[in-house]
């Protein structure tokens, strides 16, 4: 398989959450091994959604005029989601694990992401751009011709 990429730029408007989640799920669904693995699709849809919602809610604090750029990049052996925003930055290492004995206190999103991906990198560039890169290694990614 050749590499497959999509770059999407939207404003930080919640109207884009579901369309983007579906876009990603639908791209993956046409590729092996995702096409036959609903559970894998579910978990990737979930972390994509959590990362995007965090940008709208935390980086942009629900201000709908922010810009979000998302890159989906597929290689035969890995999947990468890259999120870029120009809002508030944060230090992921400072975020504590959620306390599962106190449900409802939040903090689940980043924890879901960390549990699912193989690599997570967050950097703030001097220009003020924040980049979150999520990498999941999956072998044998290819187009499903059936």
């Amino acid at each position, binding site marked *: 398989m050749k590499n497959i990429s999509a770059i999407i730029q939207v404003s930080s408007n*919640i109207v884009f959450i*579901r369309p983007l989640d579906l876009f990603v799920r639908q791209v993956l669904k046409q590729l092996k091994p995702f096409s036959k693995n609903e559970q894998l699709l579910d978990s990737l849809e979930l972390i994509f959604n959590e990362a995007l919602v965090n940008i709208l809610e935390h980086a942009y604090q629900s201000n709908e005029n922010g810009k979000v750029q998302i890159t989906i990049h597929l290689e035969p052996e890995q999947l990468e989601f890259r999120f870029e925003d120009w809002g508030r930055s944060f230090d992921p290492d400072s975020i504590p694990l959620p306390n599962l004995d106190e449900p*409802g206190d939040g903090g689940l*999103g980043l924890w879901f992401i960390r549990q699912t991906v193989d690599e997570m990198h967050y950097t703030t560039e001097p220009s003020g751009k924040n980049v979150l890169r999520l990498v999941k290694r999956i072998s044998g990614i290819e187009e499903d011709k059936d």
Partner: protein
Amino acid sequence: MNIEERQGITILATEEKLDAVVATKLKDTVKKLAEDGNLKILIDMGNTRFIDSAGCGALVASLRVLLKNKGDMKIARPSPQVQTLFELTRLHRVFEIFDDFDVAVRSFS
């Protein structure tokens, strides 16, 4: 979201996604129902394919509101994705969950 009354129980059916987009609406709806005296609430998730952390948070907040008002909230028919997430977050120990809708309804009496 669809709301129905059956045998003194309020059945709130969630849609395809119980996500950040509708989380606040769910919390507000349950709060309003409780304030109006509807204290037995069944969340029917039979049509819900997907839940996220915001959806889980809204369910927990809703349960809290009901318990504070001496009511109860239960959950029926979670999808595999919903069930998986409940287990991962240990919410399956917090919520009373039923695979069968009728059993869930009867459990209130």
